[in-house]
């Protein structure tokens, strides 16, 4: 395992500082690169942040276990893809050539419905999630977003057993349902 692969491993395990380092280290370069397409800095920053999130979610999904190229090349492949998507939507500019096609085959971009397209239920769920205690938020996030196994959560949060995590998770979901029910009334 090379240095960058270890880096990715650490991020997968929950080392947010390393992700933040990647974010800061590549931001300026991406900004300079994307300014050529006459985008406003704020727009570029949005695109860049979304790219980092795609990059992160791919790590969580275990898609970047072995790196065929450097972290930076991966990140920029995602960033360029996102940029093209954005420019196409704008229908204003000629799309630039995209050389990293084969890299992207290893990356999945989870498109999420925009907030406006989501039904009210998701909004209510989000409000509910914020009302949960920090422990519950953490367990649900680790399990459903970070894709961690019950054993991993047990180890990381110091629970007695895997079953304790499991019942804690069920309890949190029940609590969330109750909160959601209360909002919907």
């Amino acid at each position, binding site marked *: 395992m090379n240095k960058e692969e270890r880096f990715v491993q650490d991020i997968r395990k929950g080392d*947010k500082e390393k992700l*933040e380092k990647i*974010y*800061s280290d590549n*931001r300026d370069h991406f900004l300079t690169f994307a300014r050529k397409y006459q985008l*406003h*800095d*704020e*727009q570029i*920053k949005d695109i860049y*942040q979304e790219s*980092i*999130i795609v990059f*992160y979610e791919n790590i969580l999904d275990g898609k970047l276990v072995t790196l065929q190229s450097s972290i930076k090349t991966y990140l920029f492949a995602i960033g360029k893809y996102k940029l093209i998507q954005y420019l196409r*939507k*704008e*229908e*204003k500019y000629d799309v630039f050539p995209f050389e990293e096609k084969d890299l992207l085959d290893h990356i999945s971009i*989870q498109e*999420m*419905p*925009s*907030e*406006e*397209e*989501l039904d009210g*239920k*998701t909004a209510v*769920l*989000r409000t*509910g*999630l*914020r009302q949960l205690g920090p422990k519950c938020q953490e367990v*649900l*996030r680790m*399990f*459903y*977003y970070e*894709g961690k196994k019950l054993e991993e959560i047990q180890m990381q949060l110091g629970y007695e057993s895997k079953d304790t995590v*499991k019942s804690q998770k*069920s309890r949190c*979901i029940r609590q*969330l*349902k109750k909160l959601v029910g209360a909002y919907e009334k």
Partner: protein
Amino acid sequence: MKSDQEVLIDGYLSNSLTALQKQEFNKLMSEDQQFAEEVAFHEKMKVAIRLEERERLKARFNTLDPQSNTKKMWWYAAAAILFFGIMGWWGSAQFSRDSENLYYSYFEPYPNVVEPIVRSDAEQSGLSAQAFAWYEKGEYEKANDAFATLFEENQKAADLFYQAISLMALDRSAEAIPLLEQQKEEDSFYEAAQWYLALAYLKEGQESQARFCLERVREAGGFLSSQAIDLLNELDNTK
């Protein structure tokens, strides 16, 4: 819900069901209404968790970016307050505190009436839609920059107006004043601009200017006039 059902649902969500489990899952989906509802709930919850986490990450990233000018503005504001304190202008400070309270109780960002956000509409792209999206989400820093660019490009009074409101929402009313003053009587936001101008002057402690604008709003007799009358009355009472 039974615990083994939860295992099935979690396996389905993480794409890790065995062939046998898949069969069982599909069977339950078609036969058990309650189970199907449970699956739908879990799917929505997963989306909600993802959206929450993405938002949290973005907020975290924003703190890593080089500081923008807002922080500097705060220092200027703090320095200004200190200066007035030292000069011993207690009377004026007193007034400005009262008027500031009035400002905060009346200020509310003007609704977006230019580009209602409808995401499915293919026409809605470009900086203008983006600017209003930021504005509606309360990301006034971004909205301010975007409206400024738009105004530079198209010289539309509406963009200037919304830029001014974004600035006020950022507590930068002094910068908003010159922008609001550029609204002409024939512009559609003229009356609203006078109302916000009054608030901005109040915030800056310039009561007579504020009154002048409020009287204009009152005389226009539009939908803001009753608010203007209320505020004029309150100003009389704080005397």
